[in-house]
C-alpha cells in the first residue's frame, strides 16, 4: 500500500509555522506539543533531584539550606507526578497512537484534545510561577495542617496549578474513553484491541473518576489557606486525616495512571521483538481493568500508622495484597511471551526487558509495604522512596523510553542510532539500580525520607545513591541528543521498520494527516506474529542511506 515511491504527504508537512502547530486539532501534532512540554518538565524535575542527591552526599546540610532542600523535594515531587508522570505516556504516545491503533482518523473530540494542552500549559504557568516566586515546602502530598496553617511557601499557587492540570487530565480521559468506545475500525472487537489500547482505557477510567476528588481536596486546601475555613483544622472541628483519605483516594489510583500505560507499551514491544503473540492476551487485558478497579480500594495503606483504626488498616492491607495479583499475572505472561520466540535486542526491547526486571523488583518490594508489621517499620523511610521509584522511574520512565524508541520512526519518519540507543538504555539501567537499590537498605536500617541531614553512619549508602544519580542523569541526557539529531538527520524510516503487527504500522511513517489513506478494517487478533503472510519491510539503515 505505501511504497517509498508514492510517499503520501505526512502530517508533519501540512503547514509549518507556529499557528499551524499551536492551533492544530490533529491528535498527532497535539501529541508533539505535549511531548515538548513534558520533556522540559522531566528535565526540570530531574534537575531538582540531582541537586537533592548532591546535597545528600554528606550527612551535614552544607550545600543548600533546610528550607531550600524542602522546596527541592516538594517541587521534584509535584513536577514529576503531575507535570510529567501522570500525562506522560497518555498525552504523548497515547494521543499519537490511540486513533492509529484503532483505525480512526482522530480522537472523538479533537478540539477538546487541543484545549487540554492549553489547560495543561495554564496549569504549568501557575506551577512555574510558584517555583519562581520561591517554591513550596509541603511535599507533593500537601498534608494538612502543615500545608494549610504552617507552610510558608506558595502553596495556594502550586495547588491551583495542580488543580488546573487535573482538568487537562480529565479532558484527555474523557476523550480516550469515548474514542475507544465509538471509533474502533470495523471488525476491531474489544478482544482484538492491542493491550496498549486496553491500558489507555483503564488509565482514562481512573483519570476521569479519581482526579475530581483531588480537585475537591485542593479546593478545600486553598479555601482553608485563603479564607480560613477549617475543614482540616482540628482547632475548628476539622479532621487532618480526612485530607489524607481524599488525597490518597486520588493519589493511589494515580500511581496506576502512571504505571498502566507503561505496561501497555511493554505489552506491544515484547511480542514484536520476540516475534510471538503476547502470552495470555485476555488475562493481560482483563488484569489491566482489574488494576484500575482494585486500585481504588487500597488507598488506606498509606495510613497504617496515621491513627486510623487498626481494623481499617487490616482491611486495606488485605485489599493491597489483592491488587498485587493482577500485576503478578502480567509479569508471568510477559516472561512467557519470550518462550519459543525469535528474539532480537533492539533498543526498545532492551528498555522493555529492563522494565520487566525493575518493575518486578519494585513490585516485590511492594509486598513488604503491604505487610502491616513491616510497613510500620519502613513506612515514611527510604524504603518507600526506593519502592516508589522502582515502579515509577524503573517501571514507568523505562517503559516510556521503550515506547518512545519503538514508535520514534512512526512519530518522525526517521530512525535513531541503534548503537547510541543501546548504550543509553544500559547506562540508564545501571545508573538507576545504583541510585535506588541502596535506598532499600537505607530504609530498612531506619533512614526517614525527606531529611535534609542524617546521622553519619548512613553516609555510605547515600554516597552510592548520589553517584548513581549522576550516572542516571547521563543516561537520560543521551537520548535528548541522539533522538534530537535523528529528527533532522536520521535515515528515513519505512512504514513498518520492526515488522510489527498493529494498524499503526500499516500506514506511512510519518502518517498522513488523517492517518489512513484507506480506512482499515480488522479480521485478525492482535499480535498475530505467528501469521507468516504479514507484509514485513525489513529495515537496514545502511541500505537506506545509500
Amino acid at each position, binding site marked *: 500500500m505505501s511504497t517509498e515511491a508514492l510517499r503520501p504527504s505526512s502530517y508533519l508537512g501540512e503547514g509549518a509555522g507556529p499557528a499551524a502547530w499551536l492551533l492544530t486539532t490533529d491528535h498527532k501534532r497535539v501529541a508533539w506539543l505535549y511531548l515538548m512540554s513534558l520533556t522540559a518538565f522531566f528535565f526540570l524535575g530531574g534537575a531538582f533531584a540531582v541537586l537533592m542527591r548532591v546535597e545528600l552526599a554528606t550527612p551535614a546540610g552544607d550545600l543548600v539550606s533546610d528550607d531550600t532542600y524542602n522546596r527541592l523535594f516538594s517541587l521534584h515531587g509535584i513536577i514529576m507526578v503531575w507535570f510529567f508522570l501522570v500525562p506522560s505516556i497518555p498525552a504523548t504516545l497515547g494521543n499519537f497512537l490511540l486513533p492509529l491503533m484503532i483505525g480512526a482518523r482522530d480522537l472523538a473530540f479533537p478540539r477538546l484534545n487541543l484545549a487540554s494542552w492549553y489547560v495543561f500549559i495554564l496549569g504549568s504557568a501557575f506551577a512555574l510561577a510558584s517555583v519562581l516566586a520561591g517554591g513550596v515546602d509541603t511535599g507533593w502530598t500537601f498534608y494538612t*495542617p502543615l500545608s494549610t496553617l504552617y*507552610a510558608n511557601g506558595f502553596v495556594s499557587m502550586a495547588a491551583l496549578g495542580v488543580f488546573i492540570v487535573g482538568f487537562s487530565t480529565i479532558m484527555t480521559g474523557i476523550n480516550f474513553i469515548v474514542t475507544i468506545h465509538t471509533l474502533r475500525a470495523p471488525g476491531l472487537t474489544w478482544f482484538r484491541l492491542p493491550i496498549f489500547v486496553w491500558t489507555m482505557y483503564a488509565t482514562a477510567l481512573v483519570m476521569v473518576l479519581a482526579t475530581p476528588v483531588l480537585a475537591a481536596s485542593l479546593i478545600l486546601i486553598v479555601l482553608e489557606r485563603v479564607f480560613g475555613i477549617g475543614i482540616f483544622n482540628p482547632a475548628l472541628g476539622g479532621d487532618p486525616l480526612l485530607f489524607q483519605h481524599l488525597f490518597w483516594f486520588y493519589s493511589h489510583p494515580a500511581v496506576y495512571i502512571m504505571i498502566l500505560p507503561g505496561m501497555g507499551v511493554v505489552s506491544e514491544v515484547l511480542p514484536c521483538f520476540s516475534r510471538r503473540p503476547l502470552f495470555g492476551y485476555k488475562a493481560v487485558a482483563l488484569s489491566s481493568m482489574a488494576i484500575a478497579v482494585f486500585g481504588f480500594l487500597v488507598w488506606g495503606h498509606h495510613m497504617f500508622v496515621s491513627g486510623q483504626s487498626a481494623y481499617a488498616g487490616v482491611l486495606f492491607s488485605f485489599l493491597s495484597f489483592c491488587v498485587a495479583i493482577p500485576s503478578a499475572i502480567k509479569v508471568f505472561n510477559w516472561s512467557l511471551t519470550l*518462550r*519459543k520466540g*525469535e528474539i532480537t535486542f533492539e533498543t526498545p526491547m532492551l528498555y522493555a526487558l529492563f522494565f520487566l526486571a525493575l518493575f518486578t523488583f519494585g513490585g516485590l518490594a511492594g509486598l513488604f509495604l503491604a505487610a502491616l508489621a513491616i510497613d510500620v517499620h519502613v513506612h515514611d523511610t527510604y524504603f518507600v522512596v526506593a519502592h516508589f521509584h522502582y515502579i515509577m522511574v524503573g517501571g514507568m520512565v523505562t517503559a516510556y523510553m521503550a515506547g518512545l524508541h519503538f514508535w520514534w520512526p512512526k512519530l518522525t519518519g526517521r530512525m535513531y542510532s541503534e548503537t547510541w540507543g543501546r548504550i543509553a538504555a544500559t547506562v540508564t539501567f545501571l545508573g538507576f539500580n545504583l541510585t535506588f537499590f541502596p535506598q532499600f537498605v537505607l530504609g*530498612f536500617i531506619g533512614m526517614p525520607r525527606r531529611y535534609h541531614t542524617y546521622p553519619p553512619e548512613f553516609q555510605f549508602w547515600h554516597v552510592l545513591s548520589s553517584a548513581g544519580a549522576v550516572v542516571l542523569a547521563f543516561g537520560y541526557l543521551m537520548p535528548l541528543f541522539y533522538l534530537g539529531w535523528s529528527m533532522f538527520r536520521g535515515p528515513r524510516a519505512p512504514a513498518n521498520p520492526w515488522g510489527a503487527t498493529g494498524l499503526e504500522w500499516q500506514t506511512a511513517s510519518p502518517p498522513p494527516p488523517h492517518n489512513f489513506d484507506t480506512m482499515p478494517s480488522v479480521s485478525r487478533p492482535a499480535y498475530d506474529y505467528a501469521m507468516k503472510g504479514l507484509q514485513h519491510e525489513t529495515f537496514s539503515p545502511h541500505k537506506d542511506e545509500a
Partner: protein
Amino acid sequence: MSFGIPFTPPEASSIAGSVDMLFYTLLAFTAALGIFLASLVVFYAIKYRAGSKAERTGERARSLPLEVAWTVASLLIAFVIFGWGAALFLRREHPPLDALEIAGLGKQWMWEFRHPGGQREINELHVPVGKTVIVSLASQDVIHSFFVPAFRVKQDAVPGRTTHVWFIADEPGRYHLFCAQYCGTQHSEMGGWVTAMPPEDYAAWLGNQGKGDTLAADGEKLFRALGCSGCHEKSSKVRAPDLAGIFGRPVALENQQTVVADERYLRDSILEPKKEIAAGYDPVMPSFDGIVDEGEMQMLLAYLKSLSPRAATRNEATQ
C-alpha cells in the same frame, strides 16, 4: 565483616525479632522469585535469540491451566503474608498490662517527653529495659511521627487526638529517635536518642532529674487553676458530673447513647463540651479550646486518669 557499613538496624525491642523474622522470610521468598523470573527471562532471551537453532514447534500463546495456577498460587502466598503481617500488627492494639506511661508531645521541631513522675526531657527519652512503655502521643501543631528504628515502632502524632505506641526495650543502649512524618523546615533535626537502661539505672536516673511534680499533680493544679474544680467537686453548687473514677467507665449521654470515657471522650469534653452531654446535666460547661494547649491537655488527662487507679494502667484505645 561489614567494614562499619550498616546493613541491618539494631534489634532492641521485644517485637523487633518477630518483625525481622517476617522481613527476612519475605526477603528470601522475593529474592527466590525474583531470581527465578530473571533467570527464566535471561534463559529464554539466550535460547530463543533470533537465529538460534532452538526447537520452536508446538508454541502456544495461552494456557488456561497455567493462568489459573499462578493466579491461585499468588493469591495463596499473598494471603499468608497478609495474615502474618496483620497478626504482628494487631499486637499494637494490645499492650501488656502494668505499663509505664510516658506522655510524648511533638511540636515544630522537637519531641518533649514527661515521665509519670513529672521528669521532663527534650529530644531524649530514657526508658527501662524489660518493662512495657506506652508513649501517648499528641501534637501541638502539625502531624509528626514517633519512629525508633531499633524498636520497629512508628506512630503518627496527630493534632487534635491522642495516639499510642508501646514497646518493651530488651537491649540497653542508645538508639535513634526520628520524626518520620515531614513536618516543616527543621524536620530532619527533629529527633534525638532513646536510651534504654537497666531498671535500676533508670530509677537512679529518674532520681537525679530533680523532684518535679508528677504529671498528674501538675494536672490537678491546672484543674484548680482553670476553675474546673469549681463545678466538678462534690461540694459545688453547679451540678456537674463527678469525675472520680471516670476514666474507662461507661457514661450515659443525653441522646440515649453510651460511650466509654476514654481519652478521646475526655479530650472532646474539655474542648467541645457541647458535643456529648452526660445524661441529666445541663450543657453549661464552656469550651477550653484555645485555653488549654496540648501539653496541658496531657497533664489534665493524666490527672483524670489518676482518679481511676485501677483503669489508669490499662490502655483501652491504643489508636
